[in-house]
Structure formats: C-alpha cells, structure tokens
C-alpha cells in the first residue's frame, strides 16, 4: 500500500492490529443470522407470487392451518394496514405503507417473488408442504419491467394512486413516474453556445444485486406479556426495531433486537423483509420462529439497485474546458417508489467545476423487487455514463483523460450543481497520485487497453451512541450500536486506545443490542468509523478528563495541574509538585475510593462528513474473437481522509472495485417474457470469482477531514463508483469500440466488435 499525506505521531491510529472479532470469524464461532437455535423453535417460510403483476382475488389458508405441525399462518389480513406516510428513517425516503406491502402483498402482487403468505411449522419440510396447501387465486395483469416502457403513457399501472411529484401543475392522471427531480446551475443554452465540441450519448444499466453471501435470516420470539425479541443479521438493530414496531403497530419498548454477525450487506440489509413476518408468526404461535431466505428468495424478493437509462450531453472548448453539462437519469425503483435517482442526480457532475449544468431525474416504479441501497446509491449509474462520455470527449479533443479531468476538477471552493460549495476535498490529489503511479507507465500489448475514471460520494454522519467503560484492571470496553460489517470494531477500538493511550489489545469493543446501548443510526453510508468513531472519541476523552480528576484527587492537587500522556496522568505546571506518572491501571484500581466506576457515554448526531473522491486506472485485454474481457491490472486511488486501520480501508476499496467489475462485465437480472427471473442463483448471476481478478492495488491518499478528530472520511462507498466507466474506457482503448450498455458481457461486446468491423 502507498500512503500519501501527512500523519502526526499517532501510536495506534494508522497501524494494522488483528481485529478484535477476528478469531471468532476464522474459527467458525461467530454467530450469524441463521446460527441461533432456540428450544421449541419453529421454521417459518414464505409463499411468494409466481406472477410479475397480479390482483390477489383470494387466499385460502385453511388446508395449510389444518396440516399437523403447522403452528401459524399469516397473510396481509393478519398485519395492520399501514397508512401512507412519507418519512426519512432508513437509507432513503421511506413510506411505511410501501414497506409493509413489500413485506407482504396486499391486494396486488407487484413482482414475481412478492410475499403473499407465511407459515411457521415444526419442521422445514412441514412448512414447505403447508405453503403448497395455501390456495391463492390471482388475476394476472400486464406487467412492465423496463424503465422507459414503464414511463410510457399506456404502460400498465402499478399503483392507481401514484401521481408524479415535482411537476407543476400536479398531474391529474396517475402514472408509474413517482417523482421528477431537477437541478440546474447557470445558463445551459449559453454554455452549449460557447462549446466548440458537443457530445450527446445514451447509456443503459441493468439492475445488479448486492449479492452478500449470507442470505437474510432472523429468529423472533414473543412472550405472553407482549415483550418480543429478535435476533437477526442486519445493517442496524435499531432500524429493525423501529420498522417492526411500525409495521406491527407495537411500542418500540416491547421489542428488543440483538444484532447477529452480518454476512455482508452493502446497503441491501437496510430494510426489513423477514423480521416483521417472523415476529407476527411468533406472536400467533407463541413459539420462537426462525426464518432464513434461500438464495433464490434473496434474488427474487430483496432489493437490487436500479437498472437505468441515462442521457448525457457535454459541451467543451477545444482547450478542454467544459462549458455545459446536461444529464437525464431514469431509474427503476422496483415495485414501490424510492430509487436512488436523487443522489444519482446530485453525484452525476459533482466531480467537476461547471458553470452551466442541468440534471433531470425520474423515479419510476416497475414490476421488479423494490430496490434497496447499494454502495454509493445512484452514483455508479450516473458516473458510468458521465465518466464514459468524458473519456470520449478527451479522445475527441485529443486530450489525456486525466488532463481533461484536472482542467475541470472540483476543488476547494467549487460550487456543486446541487448547491453547496466544496471544502477540504481531495479530488485533484487522487488525479495527481494516479499520474504519478507506475501503473500508467506499464506497457500494454495487442488487444490491451487502459481506462481511467473517477468517482465521488457525499458520505454521511448521523446519530450514534458509544460508551467507554474502564475495567478494574485498567482495560477498557467500548460499546457501540452499530453492527460490524467490515472491521468497525477494530477501528472503534483503535480510536479509543489512541485517546486513552493504551495498547489496542487492552480495549474490548462490543456491539450492543437495542436495550443495552443508546440509539444508533444503521451501519451504512460508510458512517460508522466517522460518526460512531466520533462518539467513541468523545466518550474516551470524557473518560480521560475523569481520569485526570481522579489522579488529582489521589495526589491531592488541583485537576488543572494534571495532564494525560501515554496512558498515564502526569503532574503539569509549576505548582503541581513531583509525582511519578499514574498509569490508567493504577487509577482504575482506586476507582471505588475516588468516586466510583469510571465510564462515559456519548450520544451525538455527527455532522461534517467529508466527501470522498477516487480515481481508478484499469487495464484490460479483450479477446476480439469471443468478446471476453480479462482484467489485467487495477489501481484504485482514493482520498480516505485518514486511514484508521489501513488494511480494512484497502479492503473496502478492493471489495468495491471487485463489485464494480462484476457490474461492468457480467452481473445482470435476466427475465423471461412473463416477468419471471431466470437467473436467481450464483450460477447464472455471475459475481466475480477469485480467478476473474488480479490483485487490486489500493492507493490511499490522505487529505484529512478537519471535522473528524482523526481526519476520517467514509471509505466504503466511493470505490464502486468508477469501475464501470474505467472498464468501458479500457475496452475502448483496447479494441476501439465504445460500450454504452451494461453489462459489457461477451455476447454484447462481440456483437459490438462485429458491428465496428463492418
């Protein structure tokens, strides 16, 4: 790894200790969502719609109920009817009526795999048999999958009560367009007037799934007094608690959610699917209910990210100054509104300092599973289009693609199209680091090409609680409310150790359940090391000032005469007197006599998350006879603010790149003519395997975020933004064909090569 940027004298931050939860995870001890078993536990399963779009005329569950071993059966009729209510609680705008209807269809099934009923039985085999006995009468309706087809005036309507927001005057007819979004800056017409070169291109992408390896899983139990417990793997135990309480109309205090280890999420586990059903089945049966999705269910019924159509128009002078930029983004939301088109619009041109910009976005429902967040939601789609178009612009102008980006790059003081002005950003630093990297001077052979692309993500803070407790022997416990999805226990423990001045192995981080730690917003948006880290640092600093007070008491001097260095209290100032340093352990030992246990809690709403920028360099080789693309070399340069545990920062980048390469080359949903998914498994939904990829070099540029005590920026989102364009640009450099549709799978690339040959 290369680290660029300055670094003060930190003892723990920036080192690479073994993660605290590591041993459990390499020995099979770590308990994930499906690993818990309770006495008397039932198996819950879901009956799903075979139709992409159908009215549910009737559901008869009596035969299923009568089957020996079946203990509970539910349909939408057994769940509260939730009124339409917009709010922003999870990873985006959330309407609880929609969430409820996504968990269990009411009146209509809106996609193949939409849940219509659920059962709990004494064995999986009995539960399966019960599902077969549930009789559902459907009236199949015409369906629509494609985003532009769904926007057509004559398209089959998913929701009779959906009227497009953001258009004036408000439409009188319902449509599948949930929302129209518009951002603009300057004078677009004048900008294109001033342009000497104008490019106008159209791009499409397919839905891709987060494809975490752990299927959704939970166990729910309900006591006779209404007190309920849920054990599940999710990106937020507090999110699960809030959503279940809302969907089942229960007080939040009656639900306790214990986070299991989570086997990957990438945004896909920021919603509930099984938990409310398991809880309802547990209430009806009076027994614990475990529900685990099959891989097929994960693909058919949980949220991928949007497929989209994107139009981009760029105008520039011969000298390479972009004078105008326009984009129209049409994103599939799936069965309910709420695609990531809004952040897509905001991220589209965020990397560039532009005077004249217009961005229009459409959020469009169609008969697919409701989309869920996926790493930098919305940005990868917009950036694939913009960064590919920019590469074409560079070639048209005969400019080096990095030089063109430098000429137009956003810097401190750049006003974004969505409003705010950037401060303390590190985009140009990533371009410079990419230029300086030996990768750019590595020679290429025949049918090989090199592609460059950049990426941006906002990053977020938000609400977090953390506690730091000092044990009697001077070791410490750090409690947070965020599931550890990729090493956050390590980064939190390291920041606490740095502040306390003790070795990290003397700090034990744990993730609390909803009743043992204060509210924390979910693990998403790369916020945990930033926001929860901030809370940990605050709590640790409080502990330190308490420790100095205790030392002052022990020495019988004024607290102002004590300072904390290297994990010990030392006297300071002229009148302090002479005392040997008092280490943490010695103070902890006397805690009882000096006022009781030493611990502190911080509950904050962290602000000041610094945006992240990245520039990627990708080398490919194309087999011109088969259209197969081999990734030869990949370098990902990213401004990470400050890497707390560089290995896990690199890991975030390498993982994001691998997902982006899958998105670029082979991942897609394939539907038949009836709107049924044809590839709901890892055999034909092709995520990259080990032999598909080279080593991925992560270059960490450190432009510290001044709003975080250690300069942290979120690092997990940005890495998935540039790869699709980087690969597309590399393919163009290799064989001269410009791919505008994802995935760039062999049949598509070969066809493009053939067309170019003619």
């Amino acid at each position, binding site marked *: 790894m290369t680290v660029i940027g300055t670094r003060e004298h930190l003892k723990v931050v920036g080192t690479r200790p073994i993660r605290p939860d590591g041993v459990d995870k390499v020995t099979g001890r770590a308990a994930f969502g499906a690993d818990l078993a309770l006495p008397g536990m039932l198996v819950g399963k879901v009956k799903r719609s075979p139709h992409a779009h159908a009215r549910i005329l009737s559901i008869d569950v009596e035969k299923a109920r009568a089957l020996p071993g079946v203990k509970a059966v539910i349909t939408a009729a057994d769940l509260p009817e939730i009124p339409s209510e917009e709010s922003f609680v999870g990873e985006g705008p959330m309407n609880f009526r929609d969430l409820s209807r996504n968990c269990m269809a009411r009146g209509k099934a809106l996609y193949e795999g939409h849940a219509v009923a659920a059962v709990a039985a004494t064995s999986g*085999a*009995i539960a399966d*048999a019960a599902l077969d006995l549930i009789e559902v009468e459907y009236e199949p309706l015409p369906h629509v999958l494609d985003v532009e087809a769904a926007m057509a005036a004559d398209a089959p309507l998913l929701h009779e009560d959906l009227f497009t927001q953001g258009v004036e005057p408000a439409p009188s007819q319902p449509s599948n367009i949930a929302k129209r979004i518009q951002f603009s800056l300057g004078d677009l017409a004048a900008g294109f007037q001033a342009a000497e070169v104008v490019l106008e291109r159209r791009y499409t992408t397919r839905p891709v799934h987060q494809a975490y390896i752990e299927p959704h899983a939970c166990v729910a139990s309900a006591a006779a007094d209404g007190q309920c417990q849920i054990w599940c793997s999710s990106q937020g135990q507090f999110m699960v608690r809030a959503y279940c309480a809302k969907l089942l109309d229960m007080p939040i205090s009656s639900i306790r959610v214990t986070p299991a280890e989570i086997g990957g999420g990438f945004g896909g586990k920021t919603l509930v699917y099984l938990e409310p059903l398991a809880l309802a089945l547990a209430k009806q049966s009076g027994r614990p209910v475990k529900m685990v999705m099959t891989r*097929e269910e994960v693909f058919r019924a949980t949220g991928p990210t949007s497929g989209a159509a994107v139009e981009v128009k760029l105008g520039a002078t011969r000298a390479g100054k972009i004078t105008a930029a326009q984009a129209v983004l049409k994103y599939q939301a799936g069965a309910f509104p709420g695609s990531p088109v809004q952040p897509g619009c905001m991220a589209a041109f965020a990397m560039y300092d532009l005077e004249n910009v217009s961005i229009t976005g459409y959020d469009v429902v169609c008969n697919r599973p409701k989309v869920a967040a996926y790493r930098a939601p919305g940005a990868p789609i917009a950036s694939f289009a913009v960064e590919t178009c920019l590469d074409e612009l560079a070639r048209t102008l005969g400019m080096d693609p990095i030089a063109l980006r430098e000429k137009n790059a956003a810097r401190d003081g750049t006003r974004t199209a969505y409003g705010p002005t950037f401060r303390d950003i590190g985009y140009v630093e990533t371009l410079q680091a990419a230029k300086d990297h030996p990768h750019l001077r590595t020679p290429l052979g025949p049918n090989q090409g090199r592609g460059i692309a950049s990426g941006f993500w906002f990053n977020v803070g938000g609400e977090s609680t953390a506690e730091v407790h000092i044990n009697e022997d001077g070791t410490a416990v750090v409690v947070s409310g965020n599931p550890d999805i990729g090493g956050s226990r390590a980064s939190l423990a390291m920041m606490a150790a740095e502040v306390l001045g003790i070795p990290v192995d003397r700090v034990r981080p744990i993730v609390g359940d909803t009743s043992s730690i204060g509210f924390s917003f979910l693990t998403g948006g790369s916020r945990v090391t930033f926001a929860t880290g901030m809370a940990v640092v605050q709590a640790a600093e409080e502990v330190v000032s308490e420790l100095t007070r205790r030392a002052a008491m022990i020495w019988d001097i004024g607290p102002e005469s004590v300072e904390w260095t290297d994990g010990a209290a030392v006297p300071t100032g002229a009148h302090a007197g002479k005392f040997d340093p008092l280490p943490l352990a010695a103070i902890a030992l006397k805690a009882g006599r000096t006022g009781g246990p030493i611990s502190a809690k911080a509950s904050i709403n962290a602000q000041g998350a610094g945006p992240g920028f990245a520039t990627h360099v990708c080398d490919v080789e194309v087999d011109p*006879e*088969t*259209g*197969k693309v081999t990734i030869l070399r990949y370098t990902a340069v990213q401004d990470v603010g400050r890497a707390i545990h560089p290995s896990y920062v690199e890991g975030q980048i390498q993982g994001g790149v691998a997902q982006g390469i899958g998105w670029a*080359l*082979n991942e897609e949903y*394939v539907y038949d003519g009836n709107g049924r998914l*044809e*590839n709901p498994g*890892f*055999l*034909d939904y*092709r995520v*990259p*395997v080990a*032999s*598909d990829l080279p080593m991925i070099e992560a270059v960490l540029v450190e432009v510290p975020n001044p709003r975080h005590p250690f300069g942290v920026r979120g690092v997990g989102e940005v890495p998935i933004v540039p790869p699709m364009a980087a690969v597309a640009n590399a393919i163009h450099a290799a064989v001269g064909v410009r791919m505008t549709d994802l995935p760039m*799978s*062999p*049949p598509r690339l*070969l*066809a493009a090569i*053939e067309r170019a040959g003619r």
Partner: protein
Amino acid sequence: MSTLSYTSPTTVEAAVSALAGANGGAKVLSGGTDLLVQLRSGRSRPEMFVDVKRIPGLIGVREENGGFVIGAATPCVLIGEHRALQQAWPGVVEAARLIGSTQVQGRATLAGNLCNASPAADSVPAMIAARATCTVAGPSGRREAPVEAIATGPGRTSLARGELLIEFRLPKRPPRSADAYLRFIPRTEMDIAVVGAAVNLTLDPSGTCTEARVVLGAVAPTAVLVPDGAAALVGRRLDSDTLSRLDAAARRACVPITDKRGTIEFRTQVAGVLARRAATIACTRAGER
C-alpha cells in the same frame, strides 16, 4: 412430504435390482452435484437414491490393453491425477477437470455428467471425440454403447429402467495422436459452458492430419459430432486455410438456442472459434508425441 429412501449396494447386481425394483422413482447417486441441486429445487422428486460409490470397481482408473477404463463413479479429481491418462488423453482430462469448482471436482463424475444429459456437459464432447464407449449394466445383463448413444436430448437418456453406467473405455491410441477440449464461459470458472468444442486427431510424420473427430457442446439438444469438421482436417496440415474450413464447418453444425447464457449468433460464432483453437492445441500436442 418426501418419503425418499437411500440404499448403497456393494454389487452391480444389487444396484440394478434396486433401480429396477423401485417403480421408476429410483435415481443413481454418484457425485450428486446435479442431483442434489435438482432435489432441492423440486425439479426432481425421486423415491430412492441408489448410491453406487460403494460398489468395488466403480471408482478408479486402470489401464487395459493400451487403453483406459474409468469407473463410472470416479470423481473428476482422480481422473485429473492419473498421469498416464493425462498423457494419453489430455483433452478428455481437461474436459473432466473443467466440471465445476474444486469442491465439485471432489464429487462429480463422468457418468453423472453424461446421464444428467445437459447439452452443455463439458466431458461429453471430449469423450465422444475420443470414441469412448461405456458399459451399461441392467436387468438383462451388460451392454457396451458408444458415449454418443446415451444422451438423447436435454435431461433424457437412452438408458432403460434399471440400467446404470458402470465404466467408460478409452481406446488405445495410434502414435502422434492427441485431443483437446475448450469451452467458452463468461467468467474464468463456475459457469456452465456457453459453447464447448473437442477435437481428437492423429497426424502422420509429415504433420498431415490422417484422422480426426470434432464434437461441439451447448449448440444443440445434445453434443454434436461434426463430420464436415473432421473432413476439413483430414488429409491436410492445420494451416489457416484448413482452420477456416473447420471454423465454417463447425458453424454449420450449430443449431443452438438463445437463452440466459448466450444468443444463437454468439454460440454459432464462438463454436467456430473454439473448434479452430482446439484443433490447433490438439495438433501441437500430437506433434510433440
């Protein structure tokens, strides 16, 4: 609910009677890498599994008067580890080694790959090109059949009720003979072949092809023998002209479908490419003999 039963006979005769006994609902379980997936998905609802892996002789590779005998239940990983077989039939071995992941290699068998009757089975084109035969045991005794006679269409075989494969035979090879198998998949591993091509050939001392078999997979309901492809090679050296004739012959032999794994156009075009490339590899190998 399922009333699936299991038996693991230790003689071929016991296996045959178990298969014949169960009224049509019995399935041979060797590697199980396709069978268990079908069981889970409900595509197959057998009444009985007859596990043949405990029958002596069904696992293992042995040389027999210049040729080789491969037990029907031999996992592909063992086939790959047999040096002499690898030396004599590199194409058959590389095809067997392409079936699934390392994990699947530890279980998957040639018999399973053949009797699953997928048009995309990797080992089948190579075995047909190699003129491999198999021994079928059944209620009416044993019979020898060419590999191409087993699969009759997607998921269908010519095996009668109570019949099972017990071994494969690969013939003795003339000098300067070699084979090769190539498949196209979108990734580097873990995919089902979109197209497969096997070429088995013999050269004379001058490097002229005296005999050839060309077989394609995944471009028709079953693996297809391409006599025109062989004709394009025999009597010639493998120069670019010969190879383009082979390419054209291979394309002509394709009757593929468009599905989630590939289009008609793509499969047809790539079939020609792979046939050419496989022939070149086989030729190089034969030349080194």
